[in-house]
């Protein structure tokens, strides 16, 4: 600690609309054009094109968990954890959307352990889950997820986000930069 989430984890845990297939999610990892925030780590732009209600695979939301960059099956619950030094106080990061306001639920932990729901048939899960809801605008804001009450030794997913579409089908661009555990 501290460490940059993008140095150890990648955004490969998709849940929601079409499981990110078929153009639902496009990811730019070559940086952000206007980071205009202090930045040590990667800046990624996620473009989410929600599925219409009558489209196959429609769920009305999309989420991404950062997990280890593993070959093969990266579905949530099948990616093993990484040991992480104890004592992190928070996850801190910068985020914005292309057109706000937009509610976004950020989270730390919670892989195969969300709202008390765990699938015991899956080999891996986080021991903790912390939610941080935020209203994003087109201006970057620094947000943090409080980890001060959290106990862990290993972490499957140190960071993630989810968006509910509430009928929206227009593409939405979410920029996330400099995600740190510290």
């Amino acid at each position, binding site marked *: 600690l501290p*460490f940059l989430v993008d*140095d150890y984890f990648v955004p490969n845990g998709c849940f929601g609309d079409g499981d990110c*297939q078929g153009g639902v999610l496009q990811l730019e990892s*070559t940086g952000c*054009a206007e980071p205009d925030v202090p*930045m040590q780590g990667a800046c990624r732009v996620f473009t989410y094109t929600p599925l219409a209600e009558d489209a196959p695979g429609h769920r009305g939301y999309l989420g*991404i968990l950062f997990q280890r960059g593993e070959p093969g099956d990266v579905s949530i619950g099948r990616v093993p954890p990484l040991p992480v030094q104890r004592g992190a106080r928070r996850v801190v990061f910068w985020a914005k959307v292309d057109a706000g306001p937009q509610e976004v639920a950020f989270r730390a932990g919670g892989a195969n352990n969300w709202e008390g729901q765990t699938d015991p048939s899956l080999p891996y899960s986080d021991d903790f889950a912390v939610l941080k809801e935020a209203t994003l605008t087109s201006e970057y804001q620094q947000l943090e997820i409080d980890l001060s009450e959290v106990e862990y030794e290993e972490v499957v997913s140190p960071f993630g986000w989810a968006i509910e579409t509430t009928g929206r089908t227009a593409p939405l661009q979410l920029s996330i930069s400099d995600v740190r555990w510290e």
Partner: protein
Amino acid sequence: VRRAPRLALWALVGVTACRGEDAYLGGGHETYVCGERCAIEQGAPADSGDWFWNPDSELGAAPEVVYPLSGSAHPVDLRQLTVQFRRGRADFRVFRVRVEAVEQRLAFDFFTPCIAVGDDGCRYALEPTVWDAARAELVGKSLRLSVTGSAGVQGAQRSSPAVPLSVVDTNLRNKGFYYWASVPQYSGSNVPRTGIFRLPFGADQAEPFLMPGTATNERDCGACHSVSSDGSTIAFTARDDDASPDQRSGSLVVKVTAQPNRRLFEPAGSYDSSMMALTSNGKRVLVAYDQQLVLRSAENDVASGYAPGDVITRLTAEDLGGKAGYFPEFSPDDDAVVVTLSDEQDSAIAVRAGDIAVLSYDAASGKFGRASVIAEGTEDVFNFYPTWSPDGRYVAFASAPRGLDEGGQLRKSYDQKMARLRLVGREGGEIHELSNATHQLEKWSTYPKFAPFSVGQSGSQFFLTFNSKINYGLLLDNDARLDSQRIAQLWMSEVDVTKLPDDPSSAPIWLPFQDPTAPGHLGIWTKEVKCRTDQGGAACAAGQRCEANVCVVVPK
């Protein structure tokens, strides 16, 4: 990051303590003021500057700078530099990254916690505003970079050996750079976005430009490319995503860069392109394929006498003294072309033997002169991938030993582990090793491309980009990977020919718009990046604006 508005104070105050002691009770000093030449990173204490007044301890390990590389030359136009170092003692809590011009007693200090990388590594991207000021103030001066770790205000501290480096005037800002990359998507289909990206130099972000399966490239793959140095025209081989080493499914596609959704002419339905070169104005393209070089028209001008795509001249091995031509590049003045000549083809895209040769070229007639070999291959070594210096007086290229590789296969130019970088005069003569640029042997340092501009009073300083599988500090530890899993990245070195016959090259820098987890290859420079006009209006990527039909980076 916190920065105070006042001027920095850099006063080296003597502190009385004994070397080897691990804590310091005495020694007064003025309170450090973090001003314009200082930045304090998130997570470092506000009084970080006061943690570094003690003499260096001799106990425990000192930090060690891993990146930037010793002797590297950093373009004044390039904003990002991520310093990577080993932390040394485990009790160090704050680190000072110092960039200093010793002769001028001028220092820029960056205080940071160890942002962890791997087991004992740390990373820190120099705070851009302070680093902007540093580059402007330090350009042309002899510099050194060091990292000092401190355990506390009165705790132990130790410094790394200083790494010499320089900030060089490059005049590269807003010059165009086109390269092939494979950018991971991670989620969904998990198929990487592979294609040709571009950016005006100085932009933080590269723009996906020719992407397979889109209107910009309707086929599966497009990697081998050439861009005219005026930035007007791009040519590439569009092909199926076949895994065969021969890749004989590629067709030539030529587009004006302002309209990448449109082709200048219909591609052939069959194999007619491997590697190619455009003239500086983009009106002719010389295509290497099937052991021949074919000059074709790439202009839509009736007065030229040729329709787009028309074949003007064809050079076979018979015309070239019995060897076929590969990997062509036109000289800056379009008065010659440099090629690899080979009589031992490995596949349509690779050779196992090679000479570097220059052929004169007459733009009016489209005719080539006789091949003049300037770097002859031998029984032991072959030469390939030539590129012209911007003044047309030198040619850089890659060389590798011939024979069998570790797997018992004959070595080839493509993906060649043993490739190293070299330089020769246009007329031939002594071949100079670019050892500093190559940096380490057996690390795939290959496919050099000169930027078509020079700096320095006599225009003697050039910039050379190339692919290499050396480590990018601690962030890409290629040495820990199997050969087959190493990741090529694009690097850049300065080449100052006034240093000849000594090695004229500098240690390379990593080009920071890349994703170090994804391969990058074949960087081609242009004088400018044209705005796109096929999307309504004149468009540039985010963070840029269109000025006089050219994309420029919006200053921050």
